[in-house]
């Protein structure tokens, strides 16, 4: 029996063995399901798969058709408008609300609950609620008209040009409370002494916020940004519940295009091409940012 046991120092591979074993399932999930699924999708986006995936490659045909489709172009435009405005408004409004909350006001708990409450509702419920509120026959328009302004018109969901802003209102109503809470937590993390110092120096409050507090809250802002951004890219259920893409195709979004073409049109290739384009868009935004954020850390 030559089964000699290795008695030297344990190799690097075996250090923290139990934690490495414990992380195997997650590593496998990430590699096989996330990475594998992504690669598979990208590969099959170059095929003419219909209802069932088939490895019949047709080059860039699916992408040509995608970028020729008026509905896809409309979806991209809508996502851009919705995305930029959501980002700006939810950060600005969320921060303003958080700053107000931070003034040691009375009933802070109550207000916090009220502002955060919409977040407890799903996008489907939010969409339906706002569909009713914005309906010209039951909602805001009819209320204002019944108060005497007979010619008042406010029906964003039935006007192709502004329907995406109707969706935006619902999205902001739902999401701003969470942004407020995250930023409020960030504000609470700022040392009281900073405030005292700035007061001693006679710096006005808004300047303190803008030039001292906000830069100090950078990590919180980044977390918030990631949460908002991921919510924007995947927006689907809100549109389905509120407008189902209408009137016509004027409130379509990319995620809905992917679903509709994969399952309703039974054209997997087209759906894969669209989802690959979504991935590329996200990568274009994330990669430079990640490079700046993590790549530049070499300097001490």
């Amino acid at each position, binding site marked *: 029996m030559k089964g000699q046991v290795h008695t030297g120092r344990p190799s690097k591979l075996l250090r923290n063995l139990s934690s490495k074993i414990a992380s195997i399932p997650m590593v496998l999930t990430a590699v096989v399901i996330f990475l594998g699924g992504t690669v598979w999708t990208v590969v099959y986006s170059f095929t003419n798969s219909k209802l069932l995936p088939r490895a019949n490659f047709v080059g860039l045909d699916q992408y040509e058709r995608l970028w020729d*489709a008026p509905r896809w172009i409309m979806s991209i435009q809508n996502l851009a408008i919705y995305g930029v405005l959501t980002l700006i408004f939810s950060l600005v409004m969320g921060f303003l609300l958080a700053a107000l909350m931070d003034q040691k006001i009375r009933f802070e708990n109550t207000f916090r609950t009220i502002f955060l409450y919409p977040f407890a509702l799903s996008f489907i419920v939010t969409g339906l609620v706002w569909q009713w509120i914005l309906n010209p026959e039951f909602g805001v328009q009819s209320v204002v008209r019944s108060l005497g302004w007979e010619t008042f018109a406010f029906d964003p969901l039935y006007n192709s040009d502004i329907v995406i802003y109707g969706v935006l209102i619902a999205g902001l109503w739902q999401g701003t409370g969470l942004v407020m809470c995250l930023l409020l937590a960030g504000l609470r993390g700022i040392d009281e002494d900073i405030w005292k110092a700035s007061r001693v120096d006679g710096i006005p409050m808004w300047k303190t916020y803008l030039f001292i507090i906000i830069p100090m809250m950078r990590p919180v802002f980044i977390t918030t940004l990631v949460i908002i951004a991921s919510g924007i890219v995947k927006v689907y259920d809100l549109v389905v519940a509120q407008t189902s893409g*209408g009137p016509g195709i004027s409130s379509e979004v990319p995620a809905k295009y992917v679903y509709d*073409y994969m399952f309703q049109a039974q054209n997997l290739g087209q759906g894969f091409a669209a989802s690959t384009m979504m991935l590329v868009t996200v990568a274009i935004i994330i990669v430079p940012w990640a490079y700046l954020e993590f790549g530049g850390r070499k300097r001490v």
Partner: protein
Amino acid sequence: MKIRSLAAMLAATVILPFAAAHATDLEVTHWWTSGGEAAAVAEFAKAFDATGNKWVDGAIAGAGGTARPIMVSRITGGDPMAATQFNHGRQAEELVEAGLMRDLTDVATRENWKDIIKPAGLLDSCTIDGKIYCVPVNIHSWQWLWLSNGAFEAAGVAVPKNWDEFVAAGPALEKAGIVPLAVGGQAWQAAGAFDVLMLALGGKDRFYKVYKDKDAEVAAGADVAKVFKAADDARRLSKGTNVQDWNQATNMVITGKAGGQIMGDWAQGEFALAGKVAGKDYSCLPGLGVNEVIATGGDAFYFPVLEDEEKSKAQEVLASTLISPTAQVAFNLKKGSLPVRGDVDLAAANDCMKKGLDILAKGNVVEWVDQLLSADSQKQKEDLFSEFFANASMTPEDAQKRFADIIASAD
């Protein structure tokens, strides 16, 4: 072999006590969930239970667009139901080609479906490479213009007899504060209304040239331009319909808020449910009163391949139950659709259904777009027409150009 039979015996000892309690359970999925539809499907369940088996109802809420992806993913994912509804035509084509659906040719020849199913085109839609894969259960036709007699009375004009009179009556209706044509916001309604105009105003030959032969030149030609002109009229007349679902739009006609609606014969169930009488409260114009041709789209049941022999046998029983005369009559009367057999008696049918039966008997039928175009082309068409109907600045010429492109790339 030995092991397998042993295993089967072992399994049998486990299953037997249950099998004695009730016979084979078959799960049947479908998307018939509205009041009238559920009542209709209950007739099938009753007929199948009477054969000593058990119908396990797998209704999936939401329309076909929601239900079909669920059905397809169950079949492709290896968890097939025993039978499932599809619209016959090309929706299940690839599932059949992939060998996931059961060949019913034996049952069909035994029961002589070729002779009893009328019109014959229905069975053709179930046939792929000479084998029969589905049981058609009803005929639904899209080609109806439903009119509210009350709305026309209120506007002081006679109830139109055809599409041109209807368009001419539009301004009078608008003056009376009535939306002339109700078109709901869902994409399939706009696309369907256009196809109806195409068949009624373009005629059967042109309809086939475009949708069956996929002739893009005809689709871009002057005759189809007339259809787009009519679609432009329809768009103008439909301004002010602020509803989404088809039954909400039908409800506008029922309550006299709208003059008419282009919708399939399933709208009839809504009129019946509201207690309206055909001819008195509402009128119906098959083929828009221009071209009395109806299409033979509809529903069919497909049977996924199952390993369980008992269940496979029960599938055959179910297939012949669905097509049996008694089940056909009971089901179709509740559903408001026409039966797939020419040899059954529908004495209880109302005026509009009788008009439909007449046209069917004369053989003025076409295959519907579901049977001719793939789901992919249908979706592209829906995108185009929902945009066209919602966006008044899109010219008929632009729309026709895009339509011709879709036809050119259709397969």
